[in-house]
């Protein structure tokens, strides 16, 4: 009888200890996860402080919706200074997904002397913004000395 009681007590004790061991294991994993998060947070904080200038410079390489009008005005002024006739033929905003930014498709059509048109199109290639040139055409106008250039650029927009 006493052996049975002692055996049950022993079994319950072992089971209790086993449960506490499992709980200890879970707690250790939780502590490790929190430690990693804390470490990542500290690294992120220091990185943010160290990269303030770099992030500012990078941001300046992206257009924003607020800058769009000024930007297009500047481009049109640039074309006019080169003696070109310019039309903004397309301006389309595409909303990005959660992992992607919005994009702005801008298409220009310029008409003028060959050199000026080529220079202008080349200049647009040099725009120091994050962009993709999706379309570029250059052709001579039939029965005319003027050349026509068309370019479509997809700019990445910062929110």
């Amino acid at each position, binding site marked *: 009888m006493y052996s049975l009681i002692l055996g049950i007590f022993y079994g319950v004790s072992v089971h209790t200890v086993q449960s506490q061991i499992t709980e200890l294991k879970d707690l250790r994993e939780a502590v490790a996860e929190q430690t*990693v998060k804390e470490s990542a947070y500290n690294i992120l904080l220091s990185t943010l402080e160290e990269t303030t200038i*770099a992030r500012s410079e*990078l941001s300046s390489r992206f257009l924003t919706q607020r800058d769009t009008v000024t930007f297009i005005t500047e481009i049109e002024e*640039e074309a*006019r200074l*080169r*003696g070109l006739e310019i039309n903004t033929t397309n301006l389309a905003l595409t909303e990005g997904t959660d992992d992607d930014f919005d994009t702005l498709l801008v298409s220009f059509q310029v008409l003028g002397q*060959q*050199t000026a048109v080529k220079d202008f199109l080349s200049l647009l290639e040099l725009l*120091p913004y994050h962009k993709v040139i999706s379309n570029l055409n250059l052709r001579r106008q039939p029965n005319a000395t003027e050349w026509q250039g068309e370019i479509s650029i997809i700019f990445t927009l910062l929110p």
Partner: protein
Amino acid sequence: MIEHLQLQSLIRRITHASDNVSFKGSIIHPQRDWIIGIGVTILLLVGVGVINWQFYTIANTTPELTAEEMDTVVSYRGSLVERALTEYQDLADRYERNSFVASNPAAIPIEADVSTTTATSTADSMATSSVPVATSTPSSAATATTSVTDDTIDESSGTPTEVPMLAN
């Protein structure tokens, strides 16, 4: 009513039954007690050993993080950022060198006859025309001359051509 003989038989049966039991329930039985004691001790030692081993294992094992948890660790690729900044700075410099607006926002276009600079390659189309150029950007004018010279073959066909890059 139990009779005397039946009672004797019952007592005998109980007495004989106790004789058949291999385990005699006496209070002191050295051999039995030793076996029980050693068995319980072994059981205790095994249990304590297993528990200690588990504690030792947990205490000396660093929990491994899953890939999802590792994703929370932020990695900053500084060299990539530096390279991107350098490339964009280079683009910006080239843009400013070739842009009329950026290099001189107050520049007023002056009508200038550039036939002398382009006559060698585009005599038919450019000689009689005048292209406004800003006097403050001589490099752009020189560049324009170069690009026309390189592309005289395509000019006559009127087909789409590749645009040459401006000078750096």
